[in-house]
């Protein structure tokens, strides 16, 4: 480890519309870390024809932007991207390197970390800066605390005390982008990159429509859990009825101009109920192994609130939980606990939401 390492780096992804939302979140994540450390926040952008991107990164909170602008990076190839990031890291020695925990970030991060070498904490949902001491390794000042879902019980703190940069991937949806500030000023530099020959080449790239439902883009997510199987008295119910009630609530919110989508717990999806085939599937899953969402309103109906589910929705602005069991863990994080049967409460809520539209 070299203690002269300095700077908080964020690797920023972009598409035809500019920096992606997870990249803006990553800048916000990096900003909070950089402020606590009193260090510079550096955005690293790879690709070709990047001039427009730099301003956006600065306005959203970066102090400096490094554009690795090269024809050789026009098409995404993991080996080239890992090389470009690695050579910058080796030369300039950042203290922290953050990367989005999506398919691209995960494709590159592991290779870069191995080569440095340094640790890699994946899928973090929170970041902090704290002193750390360990009876064997000693004292460390101002370490990056990487917080990620644990093996299944809680959140774990991960430290990388002896290696630099401290490398972490950050789950999309865990941080809120900063408002753009057109007056913010930052330094922009361009760095060339020449790819050596690789034993790999991209032969085709096709852009597919975003998956339906668009959970991340919704104002309201109405999620169903295994509670759909039985009503309050314990008699079995047809889960399609619960789905219809959820759809009705969705359309009620839509009459109020709020975009709503249907989510589900993994337990409900993995139950592979015949009735829900083709209606609710993997794309509906919210949680550690599904989507992370933070809508304005999250309705959890018949969901116990296992940690793996909570990490995917706990940052929602307003959480409504409908559950027959007053002791259900979901109530600990709900702003609006509703102790009751979802088969009774969902229609009441839909009606009230619609009525509000008339009254308002």
């Amino acid at each position: 480890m070299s203690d002269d390492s300095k700077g908080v780096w964020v690797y920023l992804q972009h598409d035809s519309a500019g920096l992606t939302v997870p990249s803006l979140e990553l800048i916000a994540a990096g900003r909070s870390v950089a402020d606590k450390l009193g260090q510079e926040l550096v955005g690293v952008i790879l690709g070709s024809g990047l001039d427009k991107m730099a301003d956006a990164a600065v306005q959203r909170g970066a102090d400096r932007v490094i554009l690795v602008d090269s024809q050789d990076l026009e098409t995404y190839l993991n080996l080239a991207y890992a090389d470009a990031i690695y050579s910058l890291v080796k030369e300039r020695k950042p203290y922290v390197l953050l990367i989005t925990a999506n398919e691209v970030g995960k494709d590159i991060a592991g290779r870069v970390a191995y080569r440095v070498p340094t640790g890699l904490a994946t899928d973090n949902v929170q970041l902090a800066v704290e002193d750390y001491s360990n009876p064997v390794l000693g004292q460390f000042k101002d370490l990056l605390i990487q917080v990620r879902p644990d093996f299944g019980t809680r959140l774990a703190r991960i430290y990388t005390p002896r290696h630099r940069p401290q490398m972490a991937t950050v789950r999309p949806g865990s941080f809120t982008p900063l408002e753009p500030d057109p007056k913010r000023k930052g330094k922009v530099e361009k760095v060339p990159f020449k790819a050596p020959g690789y034993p790999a080449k991209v032969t085709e790239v096709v852009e597919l429509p975003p998956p339906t439902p668009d959970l991340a883009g919704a104002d309201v997510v109405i999620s169903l859990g295994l509670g759909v199987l039985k009503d309050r008295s314990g008699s079995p119910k047809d889960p399609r009825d619960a789905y219809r009630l959820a759809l009705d609530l969705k359309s009620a919110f839509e009459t109020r101009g709020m975009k709503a989508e249907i989510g589900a717990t993994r337990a409900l999806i993995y139950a592979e109920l015949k009735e829900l085939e083709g209606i609710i599937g993997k794309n509906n899953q919210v949680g550690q192994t599904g989507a992370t969402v933070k809508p304005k309103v999250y309705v959890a109906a018949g969901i116990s609130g296992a940690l793996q589910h909570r990490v995917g929705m706990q940052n929602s602005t307003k959480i409504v939980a409908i559950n027959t069991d007053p002791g259900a863990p979901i109530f600990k994080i709900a702003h609006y606990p509703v102790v009751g049967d979802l088969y009774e409460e969902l229609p009441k809520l839909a009606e009230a939401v619609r009525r509000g539209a008339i009254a308002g």
Partner: protein
Amino acid sequence: MLVIVLTKGVPARTTQAAQVGGVLNREAMELVLNPHDAKAVEAADYVKRRVGGKTVALSMGPDTKLVPLMKPLYASEVSGVDEEYVLSDRKMAGGDTLATSYAVALGVRKVVERHTKAIEELEEMIKKAGYSEAVKAKAKELYAANLLSNRVYSDLPSVRGTIVSRFLSGDATSSGAVQELEAEKARVSRFIVLAGTKTTDGETGSVGPQVAEGLSELLGVVVPHATYVEDFDVDPSASTVDSRRMIGYLSQKLEMRLPALLTVAAEYRPRSPPAAGMKEVRANSYRGKVYQPFKWTAEDIGADPKKIGLVNSPTIVGTGIDIGKPPVQKSVGSTQVFLKAVEKTEFEGKAYGPYSRGDVAADVPEGLVARLRADGSVGVFDVPMLAEELTA
């Protein structure tokens, strides 16, 4: 062709994971094979049927636990794995993804080396002993050990004109045979590694790419990788692999030169191998199965003691934390809230308020609540109020 599948033993129930200081104690738990690896096993079987070769399962963890878990893989769909290797050593336990990937990469290298060494042994014998029974005996021994492909030597009646038989019959000179064996060595070096996209315990998805990077370092050639592969094929000459994978909203086709590593997504469905080219498939294949799993220690794979196990892992798992502070709650049907705005009010000599509609009447004394309830200023939070707040 060598087809190497990485498999891992994971806790049967994650909720009951036995942990010591944030590290899973695999010896104390009931383990199952990582469910995400099933697709890698299917993919390996496809490659073997497509171009010929043998499938090898490689795992790391306590061998007493892993060997029974891996046994069923010998009989997995369609033709089962042919050999199994377990990297088992307390010194390697508790490693993070970096330490683990290093050890696994060493294991892969050693599997490949066993095969190149066998060919080299045969080359030496040919150079030293010339046309003789000793060459045949050596070839037979290595073939029986499942280390030579049918192209080099075979006891199958359907396979004719192996390198060894042509050498022994005088159809090939010794230098010609050695040259052909060198080409076979190059074929062995064009192996493929297949892994699941992630594991159900760590969920990092980092090990695949890191093993590829580790192999690049160990072998001195760039070993490319592709993650989340939904479809792929190996070309008939077994030198490149074409893969298709999803990255975000993009579907990307990636052509990689072998050796390469793929992590196989849940969406993967094996193709049907073409019926043509069976002769080449047979030439690339090996004798069959070795039912006795190989167990290797850290020393066996040549691991640097400073790079393995818990103590040499860059990341440290610290204390856990419980998430989220309890929010200000409004329970439908029980929480008392203000139904309308109330100006600053005096009650028993103290000032309260002002309050707005929706505020929780939590630290308002009971006497005052009674008064406010009576005049309709405070009431129980209900569904219409909830709807109002949600759509505000």
